[in-house]
């Protein structure tokens, strides 16, 4: 195998695994949008919060395996509770208000979380060690950090789980009905508000797991919330209301980023990684405004 091809494959594999980790976070965004039409600009801050709590819990325990299990459980509990509470206090009063209001409310929420975190947890970067081997995983010409492999695995499991949930389970079907038409769903006897709360709790679950994986990879501090900005190209590319779209969008963004960093960075002096996804996103918006798998909305006067 030639050197160039090896480099290309290594970049691709790296991009695919990072991409799956992006789609993990994007999933939280899609779940909320799909069922409640609300937009969560604080997704990155959710992830930050989960990672921080995880880091604190892990630091308390001496046994790494027990600590990690406990951390996952605590973070899940806190984030689910947070999701419920948030829906109740902030988002329910905003039902039926212009979309700008919901966007700004979640931006405000992001500011609150970002402001309070350094006061409560302090500004230093924490480690979030997970009980996994340190040796890089070698796949052909590529070497991947084990945490990326774990993140990709978690993402795949969650996607399978949520796909099953929406297709087969009674609650998932009810949730799809709510997403499709709130009034009709209500007429069919579905408790719409309960499913709204459930959607936010599910976003909490996804953020909890995403936060632990990302926190373990990057180290935990306020900066980790920047991952949230990466979610937007992913969901726009895939379509906002499609779980499969989040996966495909994540994979595309991951690969584009990885290739841009590998091939373009030497020429322009770095930073294309943060820039290329947005450029791609603008192009997609121009030609396919509702993404690859998004549902086209029909508007009536």
């Amino acid at each position, binding site marked *: 195998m030639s050197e160039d091809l090896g480099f290309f494959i290594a970049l691709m594999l790296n991009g695919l695994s990072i991409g799956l980790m992006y789609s993990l976070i994007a999933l939280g965004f899609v779940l909320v*949008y799909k069922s409640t039409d609300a*937009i969560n600009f604080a997704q990155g801050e959710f992830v930050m919060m989960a990672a921080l709590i995880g880091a604190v819990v892990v630091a308390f325990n001496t046994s790494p395996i027990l600590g990690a299990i406990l951390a996952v459980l605590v973070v899940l509990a806190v984030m689910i509770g947070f999701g419920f509470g948030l829906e109740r206090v*902030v988002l329910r*009063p*905003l039902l039926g*208000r*212009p*979309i*700008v*209001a919901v*966007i*700004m*409310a979640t*931006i*405000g*929420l*992001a*500011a*609150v*979380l*970002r*402001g*309070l*975190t*350094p*006061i409560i947890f302090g*500004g230093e970067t924490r480690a979030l060690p997970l009980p996994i081997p340190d040796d890089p995983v070698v796949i052909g010409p590529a070497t991947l950090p084990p945490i990326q492999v774990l993140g990709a695995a978690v993402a795949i499991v969650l996607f399978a789980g949520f796909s099953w949930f929406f297709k087969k389970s009674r609650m998932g079907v009810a949730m799809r009905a709510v997403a499709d038409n709130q009034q009709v769903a209500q007429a069919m006897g579905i408790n719409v508000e309960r499913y709204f709360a459930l959607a936010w709790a599910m976003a909490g679950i996804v953020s909890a797991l995403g936060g632990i994986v990302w926190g373990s990879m990057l180290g935990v501090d306020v900066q980790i919330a920047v991952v949230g*900005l990466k979610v*937007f*190209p992913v969901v*726009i590319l895939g379509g*906002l209301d499609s779980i499969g779209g989040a996966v495909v969008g994540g994979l595309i963004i991951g690969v584009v980023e990885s290739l841009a960093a590998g091939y373009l960075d030497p020429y*322009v*002096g770095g*930073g294309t990684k*943060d*820039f290329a996804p*947005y*450029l791609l*996103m*603008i192009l997609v*918006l*121009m030609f396919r*405004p*509702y993404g690859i798998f998004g549902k086209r909305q029909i*508007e*009536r*006067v």
Partner: protein
Amino acid sequence: MFHREAGVFKTTYAADMALYPLPIAKWTIAVLALIFIVILPLTLHDYYLSILNLIFIAVVGALGLNILVGYTGQISLGHGAFMSVGAYAAANLAVKLDLPFWLTLPAGGLMAAAIGALVGVPSLRIKGLYLAIATLAGQLIIEWTINHVPAISGGAQASIEVPRPDLFGFVLNTQGRLYYFLLFFAVLAIVATLNLMRSRIGRAFIAVRDQDIAAEIIGIDIFRYKLLSFAISSFYAGVCGVLYTYYFGIANYEQFQLGVSIDFLAMIIIGGLGSVLGSVFGAIFVTLLPIVIRTLMEQVGSFFFTDSELASVVSGTRLAVFGGLIIFFLVIEPEGLNRLWRNVRSYFRVWPFSY
């Protein structure tokens, strides 16, 4: 306040749309003018003048954003970047071509208007969330471009120092002199916005906001007006950026990052969407907020935190209070400070005979 409307009968639409709704309004304006032109600059310390100056600059930017978000119903998370476009355009012209401020200021505004209209192009096909994210992309791409193209950013530090503006040899180098300079532009922006909203264009904006498909059906070219709104709004933002540049004496992209876009959105939400007075209230409120919090925390915070922690606590508190206020106003009082002001006014309108 008292019985201002007694004896005022409007018989034409023109009278109803007038800038001075009541004769007494002229006196209010005269008193305000006296306070702002004579009394404040003569009595206030330089420190307070500098705060007023920052407010004046913020008023220009907030009005611009309100035209787009409050009146036309589009959303932009890219206004910080539009400001930086104006700032760098003006700074480059001022330094490289040695142009005076009365040329660089409109030039910066026009440059920002062009870029803003470009970022606004997707608004024809997408709206709401998708538009928010598209403008967010605009913000990040403009930031990156300015930071990575030395021809724009003037080298490694990505900042350009500009000379102080001078007016016929009269250099505006003190807070007191800058005060009049900035006051002029703030007032100009307020009057221009009031007049814009009374015109055909302003009414078209409002129609687009209320229901863009219906607006199109009654013959408003929505693409044209959406782009026009983006352009006008970005023009204000560009001018605001140029004013910041002249005020600080330096154009630096770090002054115009995503956080600034959000600050300005917060201004118009806290002040009141779709209201000129609300933009002014919001600009005052958001400019004063960090100053008040810093002062308070320096007084009280030393009991709880060490000096080294205090800096991060202050910025954290500022951010948190800020976000909390945005949520508070959205949930409790969506029409913002402007509505609170109107409530006070309408209470006193019939006071003391409320029934």
